[in-house]
């Protein structure tokens, strides 16, 4: 009986580790997939001179499809006015540069949060990928 009681106490603790392992793999896969999607969109934007509405729309759809994040939860802030290739580096980082920032929510960070006293609102975060790229688009 004593051993059964000990097992009942220890088992949930041990299971948290198993759940955390799975959750860690899932979150890591989500972040890797996000990196790939943003990278693809950025390469497209370089050719188009900016993040056009169609690139942003496609990026939202891809993230939604591959990561399962609702489209309204994806935050994309990017240069949407065409930037053209210039033959010098602009110190103001405005001309010829495309800036982007893509954020997605991470629903759960620690498995069994409630069991170890982490409230649901604190057990989540936002992963952001941001960067700058030089436009390759030539004036028409």
């Amino acid at each position, binding site marked *: 009986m004593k051993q059964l009681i000990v097992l009942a106490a220890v088992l949930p*603790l041990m299971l948290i*580790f198993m759940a955390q392992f799975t959750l860690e793999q899932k979150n*890591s896969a989500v972040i890797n997939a996000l990196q790939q999607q943003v990278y693809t969109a950025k390469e497209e934007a*370089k050719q188009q001179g900016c993040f056009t509405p169609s690139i942003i729309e496609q990026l939202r759809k891809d993230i939604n499809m591959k990561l399962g994040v609702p489209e309204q939860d994806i935050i994309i802030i990017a240069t949407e006015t065409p930037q053209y290739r210039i*033959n*010098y580096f602009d110190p103001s980082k405005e001309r010829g540069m495309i800036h982007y920032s893509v954020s997605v929510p991470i629903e759960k960070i620690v498995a069994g949060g409630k069991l170890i006293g982490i409230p649901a609102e604190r057990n989540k975060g936002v992963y952001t990928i941001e960067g700058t*790229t*030089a436009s390759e688009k030539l004036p028409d």
Partner: protein
Amino acid sequence: MKVFIIFIALLIANITFISYQGDLNRYVRLQTYLKAVAEEAAAGAALYYDEVSYSRGSMIINKEEGEKYIKHLLIRAGQTLDLREGENLTAEMEVLDDSNGAADTGASPAVTVTLSLTVTDLFRLPFLTKEQVVRSAKYELADY
């Protein structure tokens, strides 16, 4: 006592494993990120060329402007990685263009950027040490 010892052993094994897994995932992501920055740096630096030389039929990369662009990327990457004191990110740019033999050998002008990140140990486990990550990318101007 026996049960307690087994519990502690399992707990240590699990914590070790979770810690290793988290650090390894971070290390893989860091490599992917640095590769993307190196590609960006090489591609961006290759955009700047000497117009006068180009009008004479030779492609010469403007290293000065390229270095300014790479420096800007390094500053941004440093902010993203939240580098601490003693940690640093450096870049080395290698240019192959018509000023140093690209035309003679028939090779396309290219810019190679190698990023070197030095950090305090990436792994929290005492028996694993990784203090440097190096990634490189080459951008070639084919059919320019």
